């Protein structure tokens, strides 16, 4: 079983793929901050932000709709914001009866709801784009360059490496459980919820022990190659003029979006 499906990187030849990962991380974060700062109902600015996304999609040769297709992940969470439809005072648009409550959708409420969704949807797309055009190890290097403490980036790079190994293990455990989840004719099968939860907990415990012992073996393998408490890495990236130029251009564009959103 392979969990390659976890990898979100899309190998393509494009200048965006070749940008320094720092540049991509910084632009992504600024873009997301900018979205959050845009006022409710700044349609023009939202449109401009999306334009930037479309352009980035296009330039990275992923196809214009690439991030769009995958951007629904945050949608279920929107449920949580639904109350603003009714709670913000404004002109009544629509009234209806839900069980014992009389609910009124207001124009201000609708505006706010839509704006929250659009901000989130734009931000998620940018994040999707970031990992589609940057290999995850390069992303980790970018975090190192951006002075995220070494201990965190190290944990993250181990996490990334062993994510695949351990999710494979989990998957095989679940398979083994499934293949013995049998029934006999005439009897009620499945056991109680508590028993099933206990089995799941046992699987977690089993996985913990195996992970723990694996970390011991990894430590041995590291020691055997000279590790003695301090990790050294080569710095594989260098900012080129191209990188500075793209950063400046993107920031200028995002700044213009902000101004447009507030006119």
């Amino acid at each position, binding site marked *: 079983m392979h969990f390659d499906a976890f990898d979100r990187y899309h190998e393509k030849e494009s200048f965006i793929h070749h940008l320094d990962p720092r540049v991509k991380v910084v632009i992504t974060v600024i873009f997301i901050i900018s979205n959050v700062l845009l*006022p409710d109902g700044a349609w023009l600015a939202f449109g401009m932000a999306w334009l930037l996304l479309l352009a980035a999609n296009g330039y990275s040769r992923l196809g214009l709709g690439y991030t769009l297709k995958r951007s629904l992940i945050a949608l279920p969470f929107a449920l949580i914001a639904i109350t603003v439809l009714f709670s913000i005072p404004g002109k009544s648009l629509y009234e209806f009866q839900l069980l014992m409550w009389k609910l009124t959708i207001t124009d201000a409420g609708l505006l706010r709801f839509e704006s929250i969704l659009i901000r989130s949807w734009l931000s998620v797309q940018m994040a999707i784009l970031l990992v589609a055009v940057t290999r995850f190890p390069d992303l980790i290097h970018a975090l190192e360059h951006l002075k995220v403490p070494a201990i965190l980036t190290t944990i993250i790079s181990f996490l990334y490496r062993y994510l695949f190994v351990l999710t494979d293990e989990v998957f095989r455990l679940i398979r083994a459980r499934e293949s013995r989840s049998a029934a006999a004719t005439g009897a009620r099968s499945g056991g109680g919820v508590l028993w099933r*939860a206990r089995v799941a907990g*046992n*699987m977690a415990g089993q996985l913990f022990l195996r992970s723990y012992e694996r970390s011991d073996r990894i430590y041995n393998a590291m020691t055997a190659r000279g590790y003695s408490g301090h990790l050294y890495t080569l710095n594989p990236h260098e900012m080129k003029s191209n990188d500075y130029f793209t950063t400046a251009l993107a920031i200028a564009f995002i700044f213009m979006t902000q101004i447009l959103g507030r006119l």
Partner: protein
Amino acid sequence: MHYSPEPLHIPDGFLSLAVSIVCWVISAIVIGMAISRTNKSLGEKQIPLMGVMAAFIFAAQMINFPVLGGTSGHMLGGALASIVLGPWAGMLVMTAVIAVQALLFQDGGLLVMGANIMNMGLVTAAIGYGLYRSVSSQSRGVKLAVAGVAAWLSVMAGALLTSLQLWLSGTSELTVVIPAMLGVHALIGLGEALITVSALGFILQTRPDLLGDGSDSAKASRNWVYVGWAVALVVVLLSPLASADPDGLERVAIDMGFIDTGLSAPYEIIPDYTLPFLGETPISTIAAGVIGAVVVGAILVLLGRGMKAKS
């Protein structure tokens, strides 16, 4: 089987910049403390251990069990991580897990990552470890029972914090979000408790040596017990109050100055968030955001330096 998003992971766009930054600062400070503490007690083995344990938590979150009609329960893991690794290492491990979920799977946003780390990594670890620690010399049954309660409370604490952040951001109405989040997570928390307890039971049975008394000094662990119980107490007291009388909670918040103008002005929650000399313009909001970000960055850099100097 696919990677499935979790209800507690807030995406970008749902929290205001102010709330996001405040949460980032708080989380960064706690993470900084965690880094300097783990550095002090850091055996060489600790690095691969924490790395693999982070992968373990990630993978363990995918172990589910059927509950009713197609729904299934699973685990967040904050309490378990801190019980088996100690509070500081547990926090770092959870931070890495949440960061990878946001970076690689867009499960949870980047700007709101501070909030997500706080809700699912820091508070859960504090409650889990604090409560478990207070009974670590008791019998196996007591330990497991308390671990279960701690796991349940850790999920409730995360849900409560998430609700408050959403409300402070003007994304959700308190009267709805608190009962809804707490109601749902009271059930999710049961799954967390059940899995945590039997996973711990498994470890206690097969490798009890791994759950030894830890390397914490007596004083440090007493402090954790206080912190853990204090956070737990807040959850226990605040949750029913908030569910029963959210309006009351809102009033208290207004009285205490958290909220001046109510929900319609989500950017002004922190009274002096707008900078006086710039006036109440969008520019001043941006400037404040930038300053916030610089502060966070500076803290991270300083912590990074401190760490290097020590190692």
